[in-house]
Structures are given as C-alpha cells and as structure tokens.
C-alpha cells in the first residue's frame, strides 16, 4: 500500500479546473512537486490533507480518505503551510506543545533543539517573530510526532540563505533515517535537486511529467541540471 494514492482526482472551483484527472502515488522518499503558479500543486496538497474534497476521483492517505477518516491519518502527517500562520499571542514553544498534545505525543526535545532553531526565539511570542523565524517554527511543528508523511509547501520561503542551507540539511537528515514520505512543493529547483528522489511536474492541473530525479534530468536536461530540464519541459527559454 502506498502512503498516498490518487485516482483520477479532479477539482473544480466553479468554471476553473484546478486539477484534472491526477493519478499519483507516493511511497517512501522525497518527492519534488514543481510547476508554475496556479498549476494545482497547493490544491493537490490540500486534498491530500483533507482540507478540500476532490470534485471527482479518489485520494487515499495511508489507505484512508483524508477528509472523512481524518482521525486515522492526522497523527501521521506533518504539514508546513505555504505562508505559515500561527496565533501571534502565544510563544513558539507553547504552540509546539499544543501541536504535540493534539497529536497525543511527547514534544521531542530533538525537534526543539534542531539546527533550524537559532537562538532562543521559541520562548518569545510569535507576534515578535521575523518571517524567517515563523518559517522555522513551521518546519519544527511539521516534525512533531515523527510523522510518516511530511508535506512541505514552499518550505524555504522567507528563509535567509543560511536558513535555506539548514532546511536542505534538515530534509537530507530526515531522508537519511528513511521510512518517510516527504513531499516538497517549491519553485526553488536548485534546492530540490539536492534533496529529492522523484520529480513531479504539474501544469494547468495536470501531471505533465513524473520520474526519478536522475531519469528526469537525463531525459530533459541539456546541461545536467534540474533547472534546465524543467525549463525545457515547460517550453521556456534554454537555461
């Protein structure tokens, strides 16, 4: 059984087709979800998380419908939202404790003291955080409870260059331990190239390419980079 299986998933918002007959499956490994803005990446992620229902088709997460059987999957998921939003009036550590209690797990001290945490910002109220700190908190909360499925939507947004390097190291470290399915949606292909095993390219609500990173680059790139492969497959200028 795959961690996530999508069968002909379509999603419409009125006349707009956000997803059209998407068939995908995710197992252990790091998956890079790429595509231009409005290609349907975030919609697909929201359907995976049970935040939206597909207009047609079916999606299973750990073999369950994430919308109707959320209680069977919620503790196995870690999610970093694009543009993280947390209540501003609590401290970072309070928020992490809250997520741990919801997931009914102990707050792992290894998570708190992870390399993405610089300084003692967790003791401060979230309202005082910089955008980068909020993003770091978002990364930390996504790791609580050692989830089997980690979904990171634009994880390096707002991070400074050093923060991005740390984020890449963090994902590499999680990957090294194995046994997890990590889905990363991002526009920063250079980072993706360092961490992902598989690439899925979406455009206008459809999957236009999916393969292992190596095969994808070999098939489409002229210079051996993911950026070039992506530009070519999207019909853009040679990079």
């Amino acid at each position, binding site marked *: 059984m795959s961690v996530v299986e999508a069968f002909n998933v379509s999603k419409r*918002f009125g006349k707009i087709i956000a997803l059209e007959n998407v068939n995908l499956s995710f197992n252990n490994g790091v998956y890079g979800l790429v595509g231009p803005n409005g290609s349907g990446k975030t919609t697909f992620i*929201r359907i995976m*998380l*049970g*935040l*939206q*229902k597909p207009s047609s088709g079916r999606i299973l997460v750990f073999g369950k419908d994430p919308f109707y059987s*959320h*209680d069977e999957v*919620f503790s196995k*998921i870690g*999610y970093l*939202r694009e*543009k*993280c*939003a*947390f*209540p501003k*009036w*609590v401290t970072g550590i309070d928020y992490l404790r*809250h*997520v741990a*209690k*919801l*997931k*009914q797990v102990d707050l792992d001290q290894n998570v708190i003291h992870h390399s993405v945490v610089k300084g003692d910002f967790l003791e401060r109220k979230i309202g005082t955080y910089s955008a980068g700190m909020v993003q770091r908190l978002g990364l930390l*909360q996504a790791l609580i409870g050692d989830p089997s499925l980690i979904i990171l939507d634009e994880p390096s947004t707002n991070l400074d260059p050093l923060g991005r390097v740390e984020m890449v190291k963090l994902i590499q470290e999680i990957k090294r331990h194995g046994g997890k399915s990590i889905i990363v949606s991002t526009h920063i292909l250079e980072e993706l190239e360092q961490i992902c095993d598989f690439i899925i390219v979406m455009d206008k609500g459809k999957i236009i390419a999916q393969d292992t990173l190596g095969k994808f680059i070999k098939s489409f790139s002229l210079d051996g980079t993911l950026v070039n492969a992506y530009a070519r497959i999207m019909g853009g200028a040679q990079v």
Partner: protein
Amino acid sequence: MNLESIRWELKKLLAFPIPEIVIASMIFNGTIMLPSLMGSISSEDIGSLESYTIIHFFAEQILYPVVSFAFVIQGILMGVITAIILPYERESGMLDMELVYSRNRTELFAAKLIALILFGIICLFTSTIVLLVYNLRGAWLVETLFSLLIPCFSLLIQTIFIISLNVLISTVSDRTIISILSSALIFYSLDNLIKHSNPQPGSFLYNIPPISTSNFLLVPHEAVNNLIVAFIISLGFLSIAFIYFTRFYEVK
C-alpha cells in the same frame, strides 16, 4: 474529546484583541458600580430626600445608562467575535493547521463551540451580575437570590441563541467582512421583526432578560415559552452549522 482543543480555543478567544476591550469594559462596569454598592440604595431610600445623596444621583443619572450601554457593547462585541471566528481563521491560514492536526472535524467544531459558549457566558454573565446587583439594590422587582436564577438561565439561552446563529453565519461565510455584515443585518432585522410582530412583553430576544428583566417577571409563562423556542431554534442553527462544517466545509 481532546480537552487540549477546548483549552486552546478558549485561550485564543481570550487573547483576541476585542475581548481585551470586553474585559476592560467589565472592569469598568465593576469599578463604577462600587460607589453605589457601597452606598445604601433602595426604593425607599431613593424616595427619601434626606438619604438621596450625590452618590445616589450619580448612580441613577450616570451609572445606570453607562452600565447599560457597556452591556450592549459587550453583547455586540461577543456577537462580532462569534461571527468572524471561522472566516478570520480561514483567511489568516490558522484554520488549515487546526484542521490538519485535529483528530476530526467533529472534535474541532465541538471545541470551538464550547469555547465560544464559555466565552459568551464570561462576557455577558459578569456584566449581568453587576446589573442584577445594581437593580436589586435599586428599584428592581427581584427580592430573593433564588429569583435571580431564572433571568440568569434565560441569559444563558440568549447567549446560546446569539452564538448559534453567529456560528452558522461564520461557517457559511467566505470572508470576515461578509460575516460581520450578515450577522448585523440578521440580528437587526430579527429584532425589528419581533418587535413589530409581537410588541407584547415576552417576545423572545428583545424581551429576554436582562434586556428587559421586568417583562420577564411580569409575564414569566410567555417568557419561558419563548426561551424554549429560542433554544430549539439554536439547536437547529447548530445542527446545520455542524453538518456543513463536518461534511462540506473546505478551506480555499
């Protein structure tokens, strides 16, 4: 039921900027009531020129209108908060995380509702107690502490009614501003409709105490009927909101 959800929801509500105003208003109410509570105010005293001091004049002419006004403001603020709670969280993105990490939507809905009701009780009840004590020491008809229980109970129903209707509005509204305007429009229309269709004492909402405590005491049978109707309608609102939230609600 994960109590953490309720604790968190209540913490969020109490940390909302508007409740700070409500709490300040409560403290203000309590503070301005002190002189009158310290003084001896009774119906007989007020009628007596010798004992009608500046404190009584202050209490009669200034405190009561201010307290009443503050009470209305608190009610409005509570209404606003309950009306915007879901659209605000959805717009800010916080609802995404709550839905992902909650065991299920039923638990999240229940946690929000319980927290809202507790918050509503805190908002209105404190103020009402102040009003009741003030009235008790002034020219009100209540004579025993036990007789305060009925208006307090009716206040609870009134609070549940306001919260239920606002939770429903909040659940089906996409945007915060739409939710606030819808809530204001519906309550204004409902209030006027009831006043025009049934101007007699005892009509629900407008005449449910403490807005009109004397009417409740004058026609208790009618008022009790209205409370039951209000409670049943509240359950209807909550049922629709619950079904919509758990079966159809999507984060866009």
